[in-house]
């Protein structure tokens, strides 16, 4: 049986709530009462889901991964979708810190904004944010040297600083503007920025790619210009992102990109691809 549950927030809390228990795999096969009895950490006290949400559960025929929908202003809810391994989690509203952090599978959809550390250190799965994301999307936590190592993050709005910092694999696509230091210290993977990028994009990168559709104010002097051309991977990337409903209409398959190598302080094997505006 495939379980679908819909949780509706009764009232927005005053204190931070840690909601890593609200995962599709945790509600699979559970009754409404069992879901309402699941734990939430509110401030420093344990409460139950039933003290904060109303729930409706539908058991459908056939096998399939569970689907969980959360509705309400979840800005103070942290860790939604953290450690998710499968299924589908839809948040109809905004989330707080760590949404989808460490996830390894499944799909997380956030219809409004996400807080800091969206998909931090995730290793697989897909995250789609219809609004904006905070700082450190797909990045490594403090003290760690490996950020996101797989999967896809699509942000339709803008993203904050250090997007993809220290990432090791995977793709982050930001349709809007991006903060400073996108792809900082990255070892592999791809960050694509549609809107205006912040300063220091790609700084300290050892490998990987930062693709920019809009010319930044400056390119770090520790990068060197290579050439202009049509990278063979762009049509493939473009098609992959289109399947995730993320389109960069300004960059078709024939678009010319300027290529820069860097950061030479870290070996210079990373690349910045900058879309060349048509004359």
């Amino acid at each position, binding site marked *: 049986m495939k379980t679908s549950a819909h949780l509706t927030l009764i009232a927005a809390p*005053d204190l931070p709530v840690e909601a890593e228990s609200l995962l599709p795999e945790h509600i699979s096969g559970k009754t409404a009462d069992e879901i309402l009895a699941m734990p939430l950490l509110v401030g420093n006290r344990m409460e139950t889901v039933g003290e904060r949400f109303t729930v409706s559960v539908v058991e459908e025929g056939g096998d399939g991964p569970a689907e969980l929908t959360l509705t309400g202003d979840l800005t103070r809810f942290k860790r939604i979708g953290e450690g998710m391994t499968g299924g589908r989690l839809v948040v109809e509203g905004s989330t707080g810190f760590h949404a989808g952090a460490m996830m390894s599978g499944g799909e997380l959809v956030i219809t409004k904004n996400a807080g800091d550390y969206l998909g931090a250190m995730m290793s697989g799965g897909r995250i789609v944010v219809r609004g904006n994301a905070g700082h450190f999307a797909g990045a490594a936590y403090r003290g760690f040297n490996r950020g996101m190592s797989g999967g896809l993050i699509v942000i339709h709005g803008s993203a904050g600083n250090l997007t993809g910092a220290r990432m090791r694999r995977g793709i982050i696509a930001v349709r809007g503007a991006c903060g400073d230091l996108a792809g900082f210290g990255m070892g592999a993977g791809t960050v694509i920025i549609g809107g205006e990028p912040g300063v220091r994009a790609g700084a300290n990168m050892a490998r990987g790619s930062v693709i920019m559709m809009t010319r930044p104010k400056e390119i770090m002097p520790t990068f060197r210009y290579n050439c202009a051309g049509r990278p063979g991977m762009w049509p493939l990337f473009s098609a992959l992102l289109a399947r995730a409903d993320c389109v960069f209409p300004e960059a078709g398959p024939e678009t010319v990109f300027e290529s820069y190598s860097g950061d030479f302080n870290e070996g210079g094997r990373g690349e910045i691809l900058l879309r060349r505006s048509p004359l």
Partner: protein
Amino acid sequence: MTTHDNVVCTFCGCLCDDLEVDVEDNAIKAVRKACLIGKNKIMNALSHAPAIRVNGREASLGAAVEEAARILGEAKNPLVYGMSSTTSEAQREMVDIAEMIRANLDNPSSYCHGPGVLARQQAGLVTCTLGEAKNRADLVIYWGCNPVEAHMRHLTRYSLQPKGLYTPEGRKDRKVVAIDIRQTPTTKRADLFLQVTPGHTFEIASVLRALVNGLEPEFQDGREEVAGVPMESWRRVVEMIKACKYGVLFFGLGVTQCRNTDINVEQVSRLVQDANKHVRFSALAMRGHGNVNGCNQVMTWQTGFPLAVNFSRGFPRHNPGEYSVVPMLARQEVDAALIVATDPGAHLPADAVRFLKTIPVIHLDPHENLTTPWATVVIPVAPVGVAAAGTFYRMDNVPLRVKKMVESPHPSDEDVLKAIKEKIRHVAHT
């Protein structure tokens, strides 16, 4: 009259430990060798103590401790904050209390030199003591700091003028570089002053790294300059680095609070690491408050993390931004606060102070300040280094013992915090 020798001043991170203080009839009569600020701090240490108050009314110490324990015990997301001007023994009690009540624990370094501490944890930092700087450094770089006005005896005791083992001529044996956004009394003392445009610390460190590593930066816009300073000057700095025997870089808030904070310091740390491929080179943070370094030390050996720690699950978790004092208050997500040895009314943003005024606040401080008028519970304490003894950590991580020279009518922070802790424990058990 008694004269105390080798007294440690608790004002700034220099912790000058050569002061002489005359005491007669439990009053301080004279302070010698200190800077003007240090002298004033010691001379007036016992003045302007607040009354013990609960909800604005005078109360006994026992009643204040009981009310503090009740507030903290009932709080669902409390904040324990401060510690920068008290002893490490008192700081240890604060960590204990934070763990017991499952609180958020932070100190003022989260908005001053905390980024430097985070960068040190991320990338490592080649560093030294002030003694090494005094005895060995023949190249001194002041970057984003103004010790002449902020650490008044730093230049005379440690970094610029003193005659050291390998710098017998003092100032004559040292080359000095200053990097700052404006001319200051410190930059006037430098052999080479580079006035940079604000917000470019990262680019400067990156270009210096490249030059130290023998790489030539490439400027896409054709301008051969970084932060408004021509490349020729940066090449000269690198020549000075490579030519010195022992270099020390002192960095201040101009580096740690520049755009992208800890990432700047991380790049500066890597620059120092790269410089060590050629010469011996160290970096030191110009810590501000007397024992703000002690906060980081104590929190690190008690919780594993130097700042921004959360105990809501019963074990320490660390995340600057999430558990840092200013963002937490901006998000209005704490419901009580214990604030010791710092004055949030004077230091924190207006919005944060406005929110603090809406929740119960327990405040321990030796003096009336901008927080005592509105705090829920006010407990005056003995000023450390004058009427209470304990341990302070200097900016170079050297611990020093501060003395008790006079008696105060008030208990020390450490004693009050121990009493609050025992009361919380008693209430929890009953």
